[in-house]
């Protein structure tokens, strides 16, 4: 899955986010209305689609959507 598909899938799960809101360089925590609920959706989305478990410390090390995507890719390589 490339980053565009990753973003499209994530936006589909976060229903209150207008499509096109997220870009690779978006600092996702600064998206309007971003809350703990969205962090949970990100964790569940990654688990469901990549079978990768993200922890709190994992998320803390990311800022942008690209960071998230790269983290997932790195974890997939380490499986």
């Amino acid at each position: 899955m490339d980053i565009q598909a990753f973003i499209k899938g994530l936006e589909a799960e976060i229903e209150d986010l207008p499509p096109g809101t997220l870009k690779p360089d978006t600092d996702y925590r600064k998206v309007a209305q971003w809350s703990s609920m969205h962090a949970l959706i990100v964790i569940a989305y990654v688990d469901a689609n990549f079978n990768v478990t993200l922890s709190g410390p994992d998320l803390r090390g990311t800022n942008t959507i690209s960071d998230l995507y790269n983290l997932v890719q790195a974890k997939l390589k380490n499986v």
Partner: protein
Amino acid sequence: MYGNSGTGLSKFSLHNQKILITGASSGIGRSCAVEASAQGAHCILVARNKAELEKTASLCKTKADIHVADLTKEEEIKKLAATVPQLNGMVNCAGIISPRPINFLKKKNLEEVFTINYFAAALLSGELLAAKKMEPGASFVFISSISSQHPYFGAAAYASSKAALESFSKTLALEIAPKKMRSNILLPGMVRTRMLEETKEAVGEENFKHYEKNYPLGFGEVEDVANAVCFLLSNESRWITGSELKMDGGLMLSGIK
């Protein structure tokens, strides 16, 4: 900070009481062991992580035994029940949260949470009774969560498993009352543990501060829960059974905003 002995206040005596504590490798379970030992209890510490159990034992004021066991496995529960000494009390702290929105919830997620939060506690209680390891007057204490009655986003599996545990505790209370045994359950709100720190890292500092504003007395400390556990284990609470004790720093007074 564990242990509050040295305050000069006398609490509820657990002198020479043998108390089994699950989830004793961290958080609330570890604090229960430390506080119970400060009241004279002989603790039997149960968890999967031997090194962390040894750390808990080193923090205890009295001798503590360690039993490494994986309570997700029924045979290990049976083995544990067969090998522990006669007990005066049991504290069920083992648990996981694993938050997940319902549209992502699969059977394996529900099983994972229920296996440790509900099945392990229920099966171990049953095995200990069947093996006649609970002394007359023994006290069971379970740790639930305020989220069983006031859930939050993503808590479906966790909150449901805790609600099931509350019903279990009350049924147990009814069945063991003829032997003067008791069962009670605590429903803590947010307590400062490693799990809470991880949540903070996941959701971000600002969201976290917003949560704490809902608590008139702020988040709890593990000792706050452990002190209530010690009371419910002690003979001073001998007329209390089947109860659910909310401990939420006033969260429910004004509701979650």
